[in-house]
């Protein structure tokens, strides 16, 4: 899976959890916090991405992720591992 494909999955789940982002761009460099996500939202987004990508990994691996780019990079690495 390419990074671009994983980014699409991430974007879908960000829009799903933060349902008020309609029509708004989701830049790779943004942080979830900047988009308005609280700690529950951030965990939900990570959980849903892991489910969609059918990964079996500890969720605490997402704790150090700083922005969407980091989230996409981590997921891409895991999908292709």
């Amino acid at each position: 899976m390419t990074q671009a494909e994983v980014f699409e999955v991430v974007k879908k789940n960000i829009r799903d959890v933060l349902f008020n982002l309609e029509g708004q761009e989701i830049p790779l460099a943004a942080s979830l916090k900047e988009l308005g996500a609280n700690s529950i939202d951030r965990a939900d987004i990570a959980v849903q991405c892991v489910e969609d990508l059918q990964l079996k990994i500890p969720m605490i691996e997402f704790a150090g992720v700083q922005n969407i780019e980091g989230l996409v990079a981590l997921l891409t690495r895991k999908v292709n591992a």
Partner: protein
Amino acid sequence: MNIGIEAINAYGGQTSLDIRTLFKARGLDLERFANLLMEKKAVGLPCEDPVTNAVNAAKPLIDQLSETDKNSIEVLITATESGLDFGKSLSTYVHDYLGLSRQCRLIEVKQACYAGTAALQLAAGFVASHPFPNTKALVIATDTARGAAKQTYAEPSQGTGAVAMLISRQPDILALDFGANGLYSYEVMDTCRPRADIETGDLDLSLLSYLDCLEGAFQAYTARVDGADFQSTFDYLAFHTPFAGMVKGAHRKMMRANGKRLPPNEIEADFQHRMGPSLTHCVQVGNVYSATVYLALCGLIDQAIIEQPRRVGLFSYGSGCSSEFYSGIVTAASKAKLSQMKIGQKLANRHELSMAEYDPILDLNMEWLFGVQDKVMDVEPYAAIYEKQLQGQGLLVLKAIEHFHRVYEWS
């Protein structure tokens, strides 16, 4: 083997603060406030500490016991991350003010919010292995967030209070499914109390670790209990609830595990039905750390419709971390017995603080942290609240500290 909680009571303080008011006053972002599912939190007064909370939770249980039953309490375990001395445990003070027998073990256990469950399980094992069937254990989970930093996202969730439980072979409140325990523990630095004045850590890491532990502990439970299924084995669920929004996410994750893709409205309906009752008191008190999962159990028993025996799935998580998924049976008699404690009514009778009252109380609380050597209590700065909530109520309050020794009195 029929062992479990014979009696239970929760104490959620004398004052509360509306969380929306706190968010506004602190300039915290309200835009996505709704999914945190927070309503109020309990706030401790300077004359309240983990000892007074413990005694005020336990006394109604002890007062109901005959002298013989009272003397059959052979171990008192306090579970806390708000200890007041490195050596002397809170249980020594609690034992004294409850007037328990001297033929009793006094100890304290610590493992963040898991400690209440650790104490319960140790007590159940103690009772199970005891040659005398009437032996009882008293477990009191008591915690407070008095050192809480203002202006943080943790502030709204940090509460104060205690839950007291009598453990015996007469489990009127919750009969444990003996041996049905799933454990999951590993070292992680998510939240901690490295100094007396701070609670710190990484909230995101803690949330994620909670989710890993729930999954791991439940898997371990299913390895012990043939055919156990998250969706169908448990009539009700009660989880450690730092704030209600957190358990909602955890429930959703478990409902979607193993590739099951239930529609969101079905997951929501299941959450409302099986977990909603457990949030009843939690959303009025906030996080009481080691006591929280038992506050959830009290809410469940008080709020759920229990006409026949019902199986409850319980999950306990303590940062650092240790966790456990276990289960037990509640009955109509559990509900009748707990209703005598009037927990909901007592929470509703608390004084609701304004921000103008709350901030000075927090500042005063900071003067009574761990390590104070000599100090006399002055209730004057909050005299009106003291008079309204405590005066003449027969509750335990802190009077002074004399060369590190805490001196209490009945209000």
